[in-house]
């Protein structure tokens, strides 16, 4: 996994609450058996005016000029600014895959849906929760200033604005370590916990044998 330490990038403001995973990556694209290639179809139904199908070449598809990611000033954005309950709906990891594949490294919002939030960490994408009033101000700043950037420092757990303001955010120590070092979580679990898992299974088999049917 690509580690995340400190990132500075152009901000794209997506001013909608309850953005669901069906909107982030519509279901027809979930038929892929790969982890990559979802970027061109990110927010497909909002971004394009025609109906997207998997495998389609998106270069000449008609675009919705009103959608934020189609506006000239937000090209190359890598920080998504969003509203409440971002990523609600299904558990599809295709949503963070699509955001990452498009080029986003961080999402700043007042709140995230639980499963989406945890999926982001597995993919080198950092979800940052800031107070609603702060997010409101960041929206205004992003609209007011062309080329508005934010710096997100995971080690310090801080978001820095271009005017020198700084906001702290929370992140679990375990997730932070995985993301900072770009670790393979499965490898870490197997290396550090295999014996504990086996010991648990031995004990549990005595207590609740019906949970361990033979294959």
């Amino acid at each position, binding site marked *: 996994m690509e580690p995340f330490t400190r990132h500075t990038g152009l901000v794209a403001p997506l001013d*909608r*609450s*309850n953005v*669901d995973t*069906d*909107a982030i990556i*519509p*279901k*027809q694209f*979930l*038929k*892929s*058996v*790969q*982890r990559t290639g979802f970027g061109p179809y990110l927010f497909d*139904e909002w971004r394009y005016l025609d*109906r997207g199908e*998997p*495998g389609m070449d998106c270069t000449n598809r008609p675009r919705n000029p009103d959608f934020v990611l189609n506006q000239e000033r937000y090209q190359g954005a890598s920080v998504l600014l969003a509203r*409440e*309950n971002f990523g*609600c*709906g*299904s*558990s*599809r*990891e295709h949503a*963070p895959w699509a955001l990452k594949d498009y080029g986003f490294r961080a999402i700043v919002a007042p*709140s995230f*849906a*639980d*499963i989406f939030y*945890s*999926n982001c960490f*597995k*993919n080198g994408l950092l979800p940052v929760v800031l107070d609603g009033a702060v997010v409101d101000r960041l929206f205004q700043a992003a609209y007011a200033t062309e080329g508005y950037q934010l710096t997100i420092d995971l080690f310090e757990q801080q978001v820095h604005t271009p005017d020198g303001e700084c906001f702290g955010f929370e992140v*679990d*120590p*375990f997730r932070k370590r995985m993301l900072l070092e770009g670790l*393979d*979580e*499965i*490898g870490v*679990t*197997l290396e550090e*916990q295999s014996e*504990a*898992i086996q010991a*648990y*299974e031995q004990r*549990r088999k005595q*207590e*609740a*044998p*019906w*949970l*361990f*049917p*033979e*294959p």
Partner: protein
Amino acid sequence: MTGKTLYEKLWDSHVVTEYDDGSALLYIDRQLLHEVTSPQAFEGLRLAGRQPWRVAANLAVTDHNVPTTDRSQPVEDPVSRVQIETLDRNCAEFRVTEFGIRDPRQGIVHVVGPEQGTTLPGMTLVCGDSHTSTHGALGALAFGVGTSEVEHVLATQTLVQKKARTMLIRIDGQLGHGVTAKDIILAIIGRIGTAGGTGYALEYGGEAIRGLSMEGRMTICNMSIEAGARTGMVAVDDTTIDYIRGRPNAPAGAQWEQAVASWRNLVSDPDAEFDRVGEMHADEIEPQVTWGTSPEMVASVNRHVPDPAEESDAVRARAMTRALEYMGLEPGTALTDIPMDKIFIGSCTNARIEDLREAAAVVRGRRVAENIRQALVVPGSGVVKQQAEAEGLDRVFLEAGFEWREPGCSMCLGMNPDRLEPGERCASTSNRNFEGRQGQGGRTHLASPAMVAAAAIHGHFVDIRE
């Protein structure tokens, strides 16, 4: 010492290692797999040269992509076919038990698990699907996970999790005539909002919940995720134990007695403390219909489409305006005056045998209205389908003008050919009314099976209490 909640009991009995930051490595007893969220997980195993930790802990089934028409034909959509065949291949390679497309037990993963006795009380159960909360109805800790977590469970039989806060939702009193489990959960979501349960493990209790069948409890737990909660659960009682007895994968003989004795303890202690308690009285709950593009945009059937101008919160008012525009609705329209184009009875929320009986009771001897272009009944599993046919329910639906299909997710999300066309309006027993959920530009109104069946007959929603 204060007592424990059901959630805390389930959590504590699965902790392998506790970390200092309050998270823990949890043992996962069961994983259910389906074709959409598993291919990249199997691929990850293969690339790292890993094997499943305990292969018998997994059960796979194809559901999201499968066509609901004639199964003797090959799957027409080549992309869907690849995904279905990929699951078959992965299961064969790693020796995971799979109910493939022609297996009579195939169906929606959340219908299949409880039905087969694969889901049991006291378990931790995960699946790469957010409606895994359904299985909590059996007194299990069940939650949806992403594909990386699917791979982690395959490889280690564990997951690093952070303990959730606990919320008890108590529904006292008795439900009125024509009011169902679906109406309870829609009313709860209308009350607490789609983010109201975020960060919480929900437990549903009170007289009205105790009075529900297991299938009704599953409907409620199923939509916990629409209330923002990753998991929802109901304490074990006689209803739970009677439901499990005799199912193919349920324990038998001496193990059955031992299991039941242990399951009896799967209730929140009387002195357990929840972080939050929400209460509603069953009397307050009327048949519900959604009018917008989020499940919290819901009202009693005898109400009108609300007016964004009357909403004081600006972000919310904007969301309402956008929703009404997408839904093609005017404020003030009676919910019973909106003509429907399509009807969908199905999904992991409402495609079990009791749901089909409830819908058939409304439909029996009547005809689908002229303005309805298509009315689908998609049983939740092969087992449900067989049972329904044994009871003659298929005839009831067919004679009324419904189509009677093969099991799968179908028009709940339209990954297979069953979907809405732009602008089409559907009365649906599923769980999500998001933009484009049932097909790009499609408009979804969620309601109970009885309400949706009545909408098919009248061509629009009616108050089924009348």
